[in-house]
């Protein structure tokens, strides 16, 4: 039992370190032994594929309203009919009816007709990523048949599953964009701070202190006030990215600075200087490569923070706004407790947010362990 648990967390080390294996290969080899990290990596890969090629994967158009399916619970997928005969997975149509006792709508199935779930089903032609013309999606019911609500429908009768997959486009990529920007700022300012030292360092340090001692969320909230409400989706997206990055670079800058200071004392850096290397070469050939693994770890850990930032801000109505689709926007529907109690499937976006953050953390943890392949434990 303990061994099994241990295998989940502790990367077992290989006895033979290939003499000619580069840093990257050693890290990768060690990383692969961290099972949770591997699971996380695969999970993230799948999620990003789903979100990137959302058009192909969603069974229903996420913006299409189905008035007759407002707040419809998830479709039940059958494989056995009432007579006990096996079929290709299918669903039934449903009729929205008001229950006269509870005064709530119910969706009894019309058992008569079976609507099979097709693979590579025909759709109105669309362009994948705006480039590749296609007219089929991976799965779904045929056109004209009742739509497949894998995770239920929202208050306008839109398919929640499709919306979640679409929402990933904003929610998953905003992390990258935000981190990319704050990574740049962090490396730049942290690097300057750590390499120049002295007064410059002191000033940048105080500035970092300032950003770190302010509660992030209120700062996000306040800054988002500057984003005009009438901006379009793209504009808001970039504004939010900017806000996340402006607040988020400080932590990374601190890491970079610390590494610069520590590595600056290492003999191999002195050796490089003694060899006649220029500052630029020392920074880019020696210092940054040496901290690359730590930077990657920091970034991996920072991305979920950014994702949560967007989700949280949109959830509060300060970030992305409908009609944009992001997980935070979807979660706005889950704010009302009574509503939620009656339509618990509205919590599905929560599941995705948590899963993504968890997977990033696993990967980050795996990378952290693998980051230093020479660590003598």
């Amino acid at each position, binding site marked *: 039992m303990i061994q099994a648990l241990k295998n989940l967390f502790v990367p*077992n*080390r*290989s*006895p033979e370190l290939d003499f000619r294996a580069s840093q990257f290969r050693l890290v990768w080899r060690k990383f692969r032994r961290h099972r949770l990290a591997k699971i996380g990596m695969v999970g993230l890969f799948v999620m990003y594929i789903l979100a990137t090629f959302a058009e192909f994967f969603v069974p229903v158009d996420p913006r299409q309203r189905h008035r007759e399916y407002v707040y419809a619970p998830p479709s039940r997928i059958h494989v056995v009919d009432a007579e006990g005969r096996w079929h290709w997975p299918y669903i039934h149509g449903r009729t929205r009816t008001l229950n006269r006792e509870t005064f709530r709508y119910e969706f009894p199935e019309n058992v008569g007709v079976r609507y099979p779930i097709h693979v590579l089903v025909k759709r109105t032609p669309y362009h994948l990523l705006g480039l590749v013309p296609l007219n089929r999606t991976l799965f779904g019911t045929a056109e004209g048949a009742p739509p497949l609500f894998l995770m239920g429908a929202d208050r306008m009768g839109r398919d929640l599953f499709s919306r979640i997959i679409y929402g990933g486009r904003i929610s998953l990529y905003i992390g990258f964009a935000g981190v990319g920007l704050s990574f740049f700022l962090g490396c730049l300012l942290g690097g300057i701070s750590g390499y120049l030292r002295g007064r410059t360092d002191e000033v940048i340090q105080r500035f970092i202190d300032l950003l770190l001692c302010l509660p992030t969320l209120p700062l996000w909230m306040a800054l988002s006030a500057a984003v005009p409400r009438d901006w379009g989706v793209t504009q808001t997206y970039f504004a939010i990215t900017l806000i996340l990055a402006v607040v988020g670079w400080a932590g990374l800058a601190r890491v970079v600075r610390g590494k610069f200071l520590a590595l600056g004392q290492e003999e191999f850096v002195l050796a490089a200087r003694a060899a006649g290397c220029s500052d630029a070469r020392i920074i880019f050939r020696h210092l940054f490569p040496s901290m690359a693994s730590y930077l990657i770890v920091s970034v991996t850990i920072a991305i979920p923070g950014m994702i949560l930032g967007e989700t949280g801000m949109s959830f509060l109505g300060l970030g992305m706004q409908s009609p944009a689709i992001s997980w935070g926007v979807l979660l706005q529907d889950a704010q009302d407790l009574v509503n939620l109690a009656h339509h618990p499937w509205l919590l599905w976006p929560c599941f995705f947010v948590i899963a993504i953050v968890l997977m990033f953390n696993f990967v980050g943890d795996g990378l952290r362990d693998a980051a230093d392949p020479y660590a003598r434990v």
Partner: protein
Amino acid sequence: MTKLIEIKNLRVHFDVDEGTAKAVDGVSFDIGENRVLGVIGESGCGKSVTAHSILRIVPSPPARMAGGQILFHPRSNGGVQAPPVDLLTLDPKGEDIRKIRGKEIGMIFQEPMTSFGPLHTIGDQIMETIITHDRTSKAEARTRTIELLRRVGIPNPEKRVDDYPHKFSGGMRQRAMIAMALSCSPRLLIADEPTTAIDVTVQAQILELLRELKEATGMAILLITHNLAVVSELADEIVVMYMGRVMERAPAEELFNNPLHPYTIGLLHSIPVLDGPVVRLEQIKGSVPSPCALPDGCVFHPRCDKCRQGVCDGQEVPELKEISPGHWVSCFPQPGGRGL
């Protein structure tokens, strides 16, 4: 000569990812009362692990006491000699071994800078030993601590006793460390590389202090070091270790005048000394093997210039044999050699 401690065929193995590292693989020696035994060897030869095994402070896992005995002879009680205790059978967290640690056997470590916890005063950390073992009052323990500090040569001990470790220099801390190890008048002092991390002039002070204390208290010392010269300053008898095994053991004078094992000879020749003509150092070829993949036969044979194929690299491990009284060597006899 009454024996104080006997180590018999000690084996300590470490289970690491690369396999089993035989850090100590069949080590035997003993220390008599009021004797100084020096153990020398290069890094990774198992000398520290041996010393730590005596007090059972080798972290386990990954270490595993794979065999052997460490017999400790208790003080004779009114002429009645109690039977020896095998320290290896004691629970490393139990009360029996704790009564021996610090009380019967004191220990000083290599790193004077990290041997004291940073959050408590030096005095507090020394008194703690006295209170634990001798159940004295705090005031008495304090008086004794000040006395100890004075004895190890710390100026102004009444004031320094309340200082925190970071106020002490390296040499001072090593003195305080010695005071701590001696606080309950142990019969054996284990000194694990006591002077490695300190400067030569201070090292000389510490060695002198150890010699004085040994003569004054009559305790035995197990001196572990990689520095042949340091060991020659103090030791009556010397054990040379290599890759977890004893290569040679002899009285100090004998070892330096008549070294027999090729490893000992190599070591002696590779040290640049201050006296004599400056001649090219004879070096031992190659480097230390991985402790997880020890060579068959004599562990030293791949680096030995006297190695004979078919003998030294076979399956058989050379035994530690007594060549002349008190002089033990573990090496296959050379044909026509000097009695090996």
